[in-house]
């Protein structure tokens, strides 16, 4: 490790900047540790300082802060990501749905051992990661949420100890290309890694295809209600045969020989089975089977990294909301539960939650901005027919697309493009609000700011 006087000087500045950022961090960082950063190479340290300064200036100017800082750091030192991870044990979390939740769960679980650096805010591309790592340089562990299309680049740079691969399904198609293309890129990236363990959901055919290439895999039967993207084999293109027992997928295989591996972890209806055959009730405070799947994958990863299971589970149970999801907000006597569903797979996990109380009105908010994907045809892959008989309101910037979909689904609905008017349009009491990405983001902040 070459650290000159210049490097030490920089390290001092880093510490000051980090405190400044920590004080103002809007997203809750669990383990606040004093940044030391003294063993970073001079170039990275200088780049980090410049990045943090840019973040600070951006925040003063009313901008988002961290990501701008990360961008500056990366521009000055393109290898910053690798260097910031070099002396840490790193776990990456990727997949289409549940990244933010699983990252938070795994970070909580890992914090049993030592402080953890993590990107809580869903800033899951290289600039966001550098920002998160720069503000928490002393933490010996890092748990990072990664956009699935950036995983190859990032796993090459950081050589992670663990990759958690959750699920792969169509999302934002017009922006990032097809999910099968994503799977092939992940497969190639994972094949390049040495000494990385992949924790993967073997009930997901595409995930299994990518994870199979790893040196070491921990297979988790995490379930999943959506199989629309994996009916044809990612290895040969033929149809995958799926065995279903009591409504649950128990096995799948293709005639080419590609088939579901035997899992060592499993979760069904809130009960998790570990490799030793022990059974635990997860008893999460987050609702639904998708969160149970995420928790099981997080626990499989955490125990692989030597965290004892019981304290890890206890920490995960403390989570009550993830970036505003599942939380309820009051507005003019309406108690609004905000749910995020941004693609057919997300909706497959959300529809069961909507059955918990069938008297509640359902407001569906759909936008079609760049971050959501401008192609709204995915609405036709969701069985909205199930909502027939419920009180449904279509809202959001692309609610006209949704209204046509609901019409053809035979679902009576009211079309109210303004989401706040939609909320005020239902009787006071509990109401479900399901929104896609930017609609969710805007409504979450708007409602919590009393808009």
């Amino acid at each position: 490790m070459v650290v000159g006087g210049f490097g030490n000087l920089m390290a001092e500045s880093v510490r000051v900047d980090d405190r400044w950022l920590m004080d103002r961090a809007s997203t809750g960082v669990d383990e606040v540790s004093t940044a030391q950063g003294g063993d970073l190479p001079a170039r990275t340290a200088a780049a980090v300082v410049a990045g943090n300064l840019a973040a600070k200036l951006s925040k003063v100017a009313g901008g988002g802060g961290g990501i701008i800082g990360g961008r500056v750091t990366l521009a000055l030192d393109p290898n910053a990501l690798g260097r910031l991870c070099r002396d840490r044990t790193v776990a990456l979390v990727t997949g289409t749905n549940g990244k933010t939740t699983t990252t938070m769960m795994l970070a909580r679980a890992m914090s049993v051992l030592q402080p953890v650096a993590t990107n809580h805010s869903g800033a899951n591309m290289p600039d966001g990661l550098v920002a998160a790592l720069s503000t928490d340089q002393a933490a010996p562990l890092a748990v990072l949420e990664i956009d699935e299309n950036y995983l190859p680049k990032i796993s090459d740079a950081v050589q992670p100890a663990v990759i958690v691969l959750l699920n792969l399904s169509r999302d934002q198609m017009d922006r990032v290309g097809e999910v099968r293309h994503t799977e092939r890129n992940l497969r190639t990236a994972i094949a390049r890694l040495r000494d990385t363990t992949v924790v993967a959901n073997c009930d997901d055919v595409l995930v299994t295809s990518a994870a199979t290439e790893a040196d070491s895999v921990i297979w988790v039967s995490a379930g999943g209600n959506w199989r629309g993207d994996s009916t044809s084999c990612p290895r040969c293109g033929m149809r995958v045969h799926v065995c279903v027992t009591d409504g649950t997928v128990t096995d799948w295989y293709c005639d080419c020989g590609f088939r579901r591996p035997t899992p060592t972890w499993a979760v069904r209806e809130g009960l998790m089975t570990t490799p030793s055959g022990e059974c635990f009730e997860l008893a999460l405070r987050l609702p639904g089977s998708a969160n149970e799947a995420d928790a099981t994958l997080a626990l499989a990863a955490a125990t692989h990294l030597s965290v004892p299971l019981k304290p890890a589970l206890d920490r995960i149970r403390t989570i009550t909301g993830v970036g505003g999801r599942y939380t309820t907000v009051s507005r003019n006597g309406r108690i609004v539960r905000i749910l995020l569903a941004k693609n057919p797979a997300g909706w497959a996990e959300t529809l069961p939650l909507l059955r918990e109380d069938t008297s509640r009105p359902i407001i569906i908010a759909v936008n079609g901005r760049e971050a959501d994907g401008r192609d709204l045809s995915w609405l036709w892959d969701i069985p909205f027919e199930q909502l027939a008989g419920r009180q449904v309101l279509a809202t959001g910037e692309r609610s006209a697309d949704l209204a046509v979909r609901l019409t053809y689904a035979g679902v009576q609905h009211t079309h109210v493009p303004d989401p706040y008017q939609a909320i005020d349009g239902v009787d006071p009491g509990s109401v479900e609000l399901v929104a896609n990405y930017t609609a969710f983001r805007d409504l979450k902040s708007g409602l919590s700011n009393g808009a």
Partner: protein
Amino acid sequence: MVHDSVVRIGLVLPDVLGTYGDSGNATVLLKRLEWRGIRGEVVQLGVGDPVPNSLDIYLLGGGEDRAQTLAVSHLTEHPGMQQAAANGAVVMAVCAGLQILGEDFTGSDGVTHGGLGLLDVRTTPGSSTRAVGELLTLPDKELFADPMTGFENHQGHTQLGASARPLSRVVYGTGNGEGHDGAYQGHVLGTYMHGPVLARNPAFADLMLTWAVGSPLAPIDIPAISQLRNERRRAVQQMANRRKRLLRF
């Protein structure tokens, strides 16, 4: 054409050609029959299933290169759809589906594959940039009058031979790449429009149903659809304004 009391709609290989919500086209057709008191039925024809030649309408959606070659070999082995088309059944294909209905198509790997030969078109990889975005066109006057709206996402460049006619003329977007979108030949239709295309273009859906039923159908007015069509048209107008482009209707 002759049919029994049920209009039977085949969703062809939705397990490999169903990437972009195109199975919604079947939902639309079924519902528009139901609203008119006509019975309809959707038959899913997956990989490995035989393809009956007795259906009234066959629908094909989008998919990737490998799905295309798989679909061609399956449909060649089970030629029910081609037999039905020869007898006047309606075939409507979107994007990758359009390409495989043609004489041949060349994948992104440069390999040319024979198609099913239902449309006199050939497809090659187009320019290096994918055509992604709203597509607005005017249909062939022989078909129907309302402008067509959809969302395209492809890299194909499709050229028509003498037997095929363009489905529509492009007002905004890329389509086939030569000022037109799609092709038709008898009752075989192809387009690059997702959305799904029949959800956004009820006149197109009703044209197909009229052919299948063999008699004129009662008009249906659904304000939500008119509103969506107007909104998409305005969105295209705004994008054109930003690029200082005049829309030629």
